[in-house]
């Protein structure tokens, strides 16, 4: 049953879909969830609809890892964060059942027809979005398959789900979620392959041993009876021996398959789970990467499994229920398991908070990324840190492409956000069609298909197959036969969650509660995954490994649509004659996706997914593959504090932030951004808070000090400002306030020294642009003052005790806009943003000034330097509209830009100290 609120929601979306057909692809971001009507009927929490958890049973978004156990059916394994409060009363078992029932991975392992040995499928993960209106939960679900020798078909289906009450969030962040979860999944799978290989090795040794034992026995028997016929016992033995031999061959084949998993692929991908820090793993890694060694059987395992002694086993492994299944941790090696957990924590933290907030953040980040030349000046160093790894990554992935299209992807991300919203809409459209896709296509989708499917008759069979395998009804059917159990006591599962992810529960078969499932599960979107490709098609590949292209959406269809491949083969290598891919990306921004159908490449891309559902949303994906940019998404300093058990840590910090901001709530509850507890994309979660604090302090500073303008001018023009005072806290506060105006000199941290006691030196002015300095009456203090007066030409001095300022005169207009003491802005973060936007404007002026050819190079031959100088001045005054001292600000920023640009990448470059011989004045309150 679709509840009334759901209908409303759907109707609204459809309405928008209908009238948003033109180029109005931009939609208002959805209301923050606090203000939207809860989707589910109000629960037992009371009649107050504004109560935060009114519509959902969980406190905030979380990640659920679940398994489809062959013994007990779907069961939740762990949640991130591990705090039991977060899922709250949310029924994890029930939801596990839901999400495991829509596995499109269809990972088929076993004996494919026409093949003698069991084949391992290195299937791509599948990614779906589903909603459960009853629970008020929406989830991005990432299915993956791990290998387990003891499991049925050698596979263990798992899934990771990002569960949120906000459907929009899931849809809009689909790309990001998908990318991040893929990393986590890749990590798990890498560890699993390793573990699986070593398990196979052990098994092989067991088998070899068994064979030799059996062989000996047979020989003995042969010798024992020299009659002409065999006893039944002997025949049995011979049969057993034969089956052991067969088993050996099978296992060897499996080992070969798992070992020949192309590691190069892994290197290309953004995730590098192997870190040199763990030596033992390197050993086995090398071992894995050397398949030829694997052929020799027993010799190798001795090297790294010295303690293992082979034991006699039965030829037919009994697939019985009394066997304990391996835990997730055992399945994929403790190192990789913790890595994955870290990644999941990272994801949880990244996507914490309201979707508006996430989106705004992404948009502004995407925009900032475009300003690759100027953004180092006033942006956080943390943000800039991310740039490099990302570039490396892109460098690997699109080697050739980069050469061709250069900066283009970097320039398109902002428009991309627009598409994402547009495409989101289209993906919602297909919600009603997912069950009876063939019959009930809405006109638009039908049209799309008619246009786009035409050119590919050869794909028809595939298409049919796709449709066949897709209906969720079918997968639920499969579930139905399973009679899975969910008697997992919540407390137990959560207590043991992060450490031992697979708590063994009784195998009592309780009737599952899947009676509601048909109604409440709405498959909103899915990605075409490898699983959609018919199995026999795969099997016909000559290679033993059905390794699928390690790619995202486009990659899937690519192999079967060679005609279109040039336009799509992004991952498959450089294609010099291939600008359309990027061109289309650029175009999308300007028009709605609907207008793009004539473009063959993109049309194909769309239709490829139309077979299943529409394209998933892809907000600003292009520009920020991997929002954290760091391989594996794990920043080293983040790895530190969080052990696998440290799930509570991040949540605590967020609460802290919450409490920090509560003081503002009363004053102005209108802005939601402040209250959002999320330090979205937080390489350092404190930065958001720092911004707020700095903004607040700055606001106070400009209101309190009438000479704020010349002080800020000093900072902007590169003159070191020394804040002198006896009270450290006060000085620090002032330094924090003023630090938002300090331009960085390079891609490092801001040149701000919060507190110092030693006499200053000329080197300090070179290095620091804002210094907090202690004033003491001691002789040492006098030395400090001596040094200060000696170098007074390089510094402006703000005396925090006597509230005086000594610095050059400022008569410009820029700073007045930046720091208006009568400003209506009340909140720190708002003011911070205000400053940031004005500084960005300033940066663009500096950029223009620094990079205008005719301002720095003579236009005519033999043009005198004076003419150039006057042209520069003219440009600054009339084109950029600067007056008086504002010129110096822009000149200084331009100088920083130049320095940054011409700096050799390897060397840090000598920091310069630029100064002017200008008189200083004393300002008093």
């Amino acid at each position, binding site marked *: 049953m679709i509840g009334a609120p759901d209908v409303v929601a759907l109707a609204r979306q459809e309405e928008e879909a209908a009238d948003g057909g033109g180029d109005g692809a931009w939609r208002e971001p959805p209301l923050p969830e606090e203000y939207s009507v809860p989707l589910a009927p109000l629960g037992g929490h009371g009649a107050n609809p504004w109560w935060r958890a009114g519509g959902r049973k969980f406190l905030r978004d979380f990640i659920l890892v679940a398994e489809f156990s062959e013994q007990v059916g779907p069961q939740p394994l762990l949640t991130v964060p591990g705090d039991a409060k977060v899922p709250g009363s949310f029924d994890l078992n029930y939801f596990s059942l839901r999400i495991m029932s829509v596995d499109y991975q269809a990972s088929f392992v076993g004996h494919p027809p026409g093949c003698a040995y069991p084949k391992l499928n290195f299937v791509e993960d599948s990614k779906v979005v589903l909603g459960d209106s009853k629970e008020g939960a929406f989830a991005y679900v990432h299915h993956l398959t791990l290998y387990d020798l003891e499991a049925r078909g050698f596979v263990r289906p798992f899934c990771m789900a990002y569960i949120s009450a906000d459907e929009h969030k899931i849809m809009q962040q689909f790309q990001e979620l998908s990318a991040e979860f893929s990393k986590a999944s890749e990590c798990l799978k890498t560890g699993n392959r390793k573990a699986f290989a070593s398990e196979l090795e052990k098994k092989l040794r067991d088998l070899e041993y068994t064979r030799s034992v059996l062989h000996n026995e047979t020989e003995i028997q042969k010798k024992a009876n020299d009659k002409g016929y065999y006893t039944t016992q002997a025949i049995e033995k011979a049969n057993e021996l034969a089956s052991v031999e067969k088993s050996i061959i099978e296992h060897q084949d499996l080992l070969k398959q798992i070992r020949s998993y192309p590691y190069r692929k892994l290197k290309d991908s953004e995730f590098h789970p192997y870190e040199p820090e763990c030596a033992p793993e390197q050993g086995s890694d090398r071992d894995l990467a050397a398949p030829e060694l694997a052929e020799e059987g027993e010799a190798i395992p001795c090297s790294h499994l010295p303690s293992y002694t082979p034991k006699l086993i039965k030829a037919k492994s009994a697939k019985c229920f009394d066997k304990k299944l391996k835990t997730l941790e055992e399945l994929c090696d403790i190192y990789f398991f913790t890595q994955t957990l870290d990644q999941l924590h990272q994801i949880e933290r990244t996507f914490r908070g309201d979707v508006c907030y996430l989106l705004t953040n992404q948009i502004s980040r995407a925009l900032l990324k475009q300003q690759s030349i100027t953004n180092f000046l006033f942006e956080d160093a943390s943000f800039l840190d991310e740039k490099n790894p990302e570039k490396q990554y892109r460098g690997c992935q699109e080697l050739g492409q980069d050469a061709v299209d*250069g*900066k*283009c992807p970097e320039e398109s991300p902002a428009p991309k956000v627009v598409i994402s919203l547009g495409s989101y809409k289209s993906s919602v459209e297909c919600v009603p069609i997912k069950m009876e896709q063939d019959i009930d296509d809405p006109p638009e989708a039908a049209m799309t298909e008619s246009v786009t499917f035409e050119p590919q008759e050869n794909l028809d069979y595939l298409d049919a197959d796709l449709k066949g395998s897709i209906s969720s009804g079918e997968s639920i059917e499969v579930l139905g036969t399973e009679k899975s159990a969910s008697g997992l006591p919540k407390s137990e599962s959560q207590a043991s969650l992060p450490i031992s992810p697979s708590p063994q529960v009784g195998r009592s078969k309780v009737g599952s509660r899947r009676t509601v499932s048909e109604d409440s599960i709405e498959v909103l979107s899915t990605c075409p995954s490898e699983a959609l490709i018919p199995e026999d098609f795969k099997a016909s590949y000559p290679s033993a490994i059905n390794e699928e292209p390690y790619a995202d959406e486009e990659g899937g269809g690519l192999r079967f649509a060679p005609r279109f491949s040039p336009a799509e083969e992004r991952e498959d290598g450089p294609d010099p004659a291939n600008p359309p891919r990027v061109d289309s990306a650029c175009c999308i921004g300007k028009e709605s996706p609907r207008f793009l159908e004539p473009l063959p490449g993109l049309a194909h891309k769309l239709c490829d997914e139309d077979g299943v559902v529409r394209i998933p949303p892809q907000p600003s994906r292009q520009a920020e593959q991997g929002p954290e940019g760091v391989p594996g998404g794990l920043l080293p300093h983040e790895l530190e504090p969080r052990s696998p058990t440290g799930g509570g840590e991040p949540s605590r910090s967020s609460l802290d932030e919450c409490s920090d901001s509560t003081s503002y709530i009363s004053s102005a509850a209108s802005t939601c951004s402040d209250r959002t507890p999320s330090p979205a994309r937080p390489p350092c979660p404190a930065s958001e808070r720092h911004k707020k604090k700095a903004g607040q302090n700055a606001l106070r500073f400009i209101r309190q000090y009438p000479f704020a303008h010349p002080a800020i001018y000093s900072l902007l023009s590169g003159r070191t400002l020394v804040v*002198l005072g006896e009270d450290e806290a006060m000085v620090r506060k002032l330094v924090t306030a003023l630090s938002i105006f300090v331009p960085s000199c390079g891609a490092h941290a801001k040149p701000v020294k919060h507190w110092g006691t030693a006499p200053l*030196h*000329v*080197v300090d002015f*070179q290095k620091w642009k804002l210094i907090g300095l202690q*004033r003491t*009456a001691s002789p040492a203090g*006098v030395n400090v*003052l*001596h*040094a*200060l*007066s*000696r*170098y*007074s*030409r390089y510094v402006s*001095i703000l*005396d925090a*005790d*006597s509230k*005086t300022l*000594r610095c050059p005169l400022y008569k410009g207009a820029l700073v007045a806009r930046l720091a208006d003491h009568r400003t209506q802005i009340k909140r720190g973060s708002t003011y911070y943003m205000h400053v940031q936007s004005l500084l960005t404007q300033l940066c663009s002026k500096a950029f223009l000034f*620094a*990079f205008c*050819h005719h*301002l*720095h*190079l003579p236009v005519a031959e033999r043009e005198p*330097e004076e003419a150039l100088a006057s042209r520069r001045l003219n440009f600054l005054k009339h084109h950029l509209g600067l007056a008086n001292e504002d010129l110096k600000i822009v*000149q200084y920023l331009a*100088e920083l830009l*130049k*320095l940054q*640009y*011409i700096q050799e990448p390897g060397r840090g470059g*000598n920091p*310069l*100290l*630029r*100064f*002017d*011989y*200008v*008189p*200083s004045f*004393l300002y008093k309150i």
Partner: protein
Amino acid sequence: MLRWLIGGGREPQGLAEKSSVQTIGEEQIQNPYTELLVLKGHQDIVRFLVQIDDCRFASAGDDGIIFLWNAQTGEKLFELHGHTQKITAIAPFSSSDASEEKSNLILTASADKTVIVWDCTTDRQVQKVSCFHSTVKCLTVLQRLDVWLSGGSDLCVWNRKLDLLCKTSHLTDAGISTLVELPKNCVAAAVGKELIIFRLIASSDKSEGWNILEVKRLVDHHDNILSLVSVNDLTFVTGSHVGELIVWDAIDWTMQASECNFWDSSVHPDSQTEIKLSQSPNETSVQHLTCDEECVFAAVGKGIYVYNLQMKRVIACQRTAHDSSVLHIEKLPNRQLISCSEDGSVRIWELREKQQVPAEPVPTGFFNMWGFGRANKQANQAAKKTQENTTMHFLELVGDLIGHSSAVQMFLYFGELGLVTCSADHLIILWKDGERESRLRSLTLFQKLAQNGDLQLKF
């Protein structure tokens, strides 16, 4: 300033209101040096700077390490290790022959009684001479003869291959403090109070052999000769610790003129006694001499004096140009004079024709306030009167460079590239014309843009 910093009431009562030192405000229009680069590397006092070619220089000091720097970028090119004790002398030795490819050598002498020849194009040590009986205190290269001299307790003559050609007998234990080349294959060596003239004579038997012969001893100075400079082929000038300046004929080594009382040469006897009381001999010693065609510039104590060779008198002076001893002065082509001092500052002066000179050409600015704890009102009056009484010329302060926190030992003027100063605070500072640097950076920027192909539009 300091008073303001310290805050009212806390200031000691005896704080000097004004110092005698002429000061310039923070507004220095004529000062071109608006950018600086601090070069770090030395671990002890940096005493010597020597120019190698158009854009490189070497620095050496008490840590025994020689650094080679790029004067444009401030990049450290080489670090030459070889001496175990402090460097006492350094001299560039560029090849004289046009036929030979340009090789830049530098000679360094150290307190470890060795001289090392370094190749500046690599960081190679060409050769090391360690047969000295005492520390070599001065090195002079005679380009004409392609030999070099080392002066310690004796004077040795070496050729390019580091063969010892000849040496004098042991002169004194104190040794030769400075050497200067004179015409006719002569050199003047300052040994304590004496000035000894040596002549190099080509030996008859060998083609490349030289003999050294003491020609004359001049004993006119009353105290140690500290500075020695050759003005032109006809004259050279010496200065001593007690403030004697003697102009010599370079051909026949006779005294042409002498100026011995720098501190009372001016005509104002009323203040003289007071000054004499306050001045120790150290403050009248001739620390350094430099010259151009017509004038000799002497750093005497804290002051700078301009001695005209034609007029044979001091034509301009700045009695207290710095707060403490002036260590090095140099005349620039554009009538400017740069001086550096133990007080850690570098000052740029301009020698101007006197018109109607006001008593204080530059208003006392900010810096006069931090003459801390020095009572010298009288000196200030003296300075004023000096200015009024100089006849034709005066030295005007056009700029000062503050950066070092300790004595500035020496500086090197690199023309357009800027000015290099070295100091006892272990630092070398490269002072540059900010405008010029900015232009250069723009040029580099556009070159790099063109290289990267970023100038083309990408749409």
